């Protein structure tokens, strides 16, 4: 991992993207790391494109502005790919994680990703529907991020989801989300 890991999330209002960034930051606290999680605040509307950001570092994080050169780009809604250039500012070794049922190779072409950049896909919406009956792709996406970034273990992420969701949801929904995180972690494909 680079000294500071910077993540940019692309999602739509109502998909739990901001919650995903928060859960991931919280899980990364372990090991004495510094974390940030923040959305770009626009008019908050369900379905509108939004961005959120994470920074994780062993050093104190002093930068207080959007992530401009993300190491990881997480796309929670693949329909955004038609209207937004999610590769903006990405370095040559950037990693893309896209919620899509399509083959990662196909998306690599669509993104025009450089050969040195990695592209992963996961059908997070399908996993979410199967696990807890709602098209909320954020939990599987957090699982994928844990796997791809390699900076936090599946167990720590699961523990954190349990803690974050425990205050708000029923046991059934929590269990479904935990299963969804696990399946995201396991079912991600590289292309």
């Amino acid at each position, binding site marked *: 991992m680079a000294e500071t890991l910077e993540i940019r999330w692309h999602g739509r209002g109502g998909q739990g993207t901001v919650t995903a*960034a928060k859960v991931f930051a919280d899980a990364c*606290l372990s090991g004495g790391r*510094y*974390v*940030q*999680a923040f959305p770009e605040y626009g008019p908050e509307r369900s379905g509108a494109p939004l961005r959120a950001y994470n920074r994780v570092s062993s050093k104190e994080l*002093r930068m*207080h*502005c959007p992530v401009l050169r993300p190491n990881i780009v997480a796309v929670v809604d693949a329909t955004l790919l038609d209207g937004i250039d999610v590769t903006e500012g990405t370095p040559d070794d950037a990693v893309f994680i896209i919620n899509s049922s399509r083959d990662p190779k196909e998306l690599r072409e669509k993104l025009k990703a450089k050969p040195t950049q990695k592209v992963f896909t996961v059908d997070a919406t399908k996993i979410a529907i199967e696990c807890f009956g709602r098209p909320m792709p954020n939990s599987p996406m957090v699982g994928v991020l844990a796997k791809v970034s390699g900076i936090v273990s599946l167990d720590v992420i699961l523990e954190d989801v349990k803690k974050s969701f425990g205050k708000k949801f029923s046991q059934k929904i929590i269990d479904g989300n935990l299963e969804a995180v696990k399946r995201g972690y396991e079912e991600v494909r590289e292309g």
Partner: protein
Amino acid sequence: MPKIVAVTGNEAVAEALRQVNPDVCAAYPITPQTDMMQRFATFANNGKVKTEMILVESEHSAMSACVGAAAAGGRVITATSSQGMALMWEVLFIASGSRLPIVMPLVNRALSAPLNIHGDHSDGMGARDCGWIQLWSENAQEAYDNAIQAFRIAEHMDIRLPVMICLDGFIISHSIERIEYLDDDTVKNFVGEYKQLNPLLDVEHPVSYGPLILPDYYMEFRRAQAEVMTKVADVVLNVAKDFEKISGRKYGLFETYRLDDAEIGLVILNSAAGTSKDVIDEFRNRGIKAGLLKPRLYRPFPYEEVGEALKHLKAVCVLDRADAFGASYGPLFMDIASSIYPYKDKPILINKIYGLGGRDYLPEHAELVLNELAEIAKTGKVKTFKEYIGVRD
């Protein structure tokens, strides 16, 4: 044991207020502060604090209720932003003139019109001369730490003045960061029992608040208020010393970053200072002697100490996240100019207005300014003394 958490700035300050457990809180919602008082009201509702919540119908009423409760003899808090602070305006002066140690987080936000809910310093700067003490905070940790220290400063028997804790709206108030919470008992012992001074409810010793004072005494009263301001800096430093003992974190009247041997420097408040520090490191790596000064105690402004810290530089840019319309320069610039005014040899000063209404302050902005300062330091020539940066032409 301190607890490490990832929380928003609003959450961190609400936690500090819970740990202090004040007697009275009167508040009215306004973005981006709302979430802080909502959290505090939840603590009150769930019995986590013994605070009496007064949910008022406006910020004018919020500050009026605070004035009444503080005069009655209670430890009192509120919080606000932007238009809310503007609506409190006349009562802010009543709080400070009556020497009431009210503590108020101000989540900095732009002023209308045009309507904008995002972070800039127009609200805090507009209230800089209203007799309140102002502590400014770079991040959630500093906002939390300043909130705790604010009570000791406000309630000090030589001071008895209200304190505002400023933090950037959204950039800090709504962003999650890693911070360290002190434990409840440590905070409780640090802040101590509230000591009343001339409480209205002490019927054995009746006092009057808010009397009419005509020309025969008004000026003496005002001079006394100006004099108490001169005692604040020492109290702030002593409280910081005690705070370092419980937290390990050092605070001064301002923070200097790589400034001692610097030739060029930035003066900048709050969250943008952090972004600037990272850029200063890059310039240092290239052999350019850049540094930074970030005010913390902004009112009363420590003119002499700031002047001493800046006088050896060749060129300084003061970055203001608010403009002072009709004045020649931004508000922070005018204070910095006053600080270095007495010195024969002093840096060339320029002023940039940035980040209004939540416009991002990016590393490229700091780079732009530092490159310009390096050029000024070399040639002694200034193209423009004041301009807006990060703005469309």
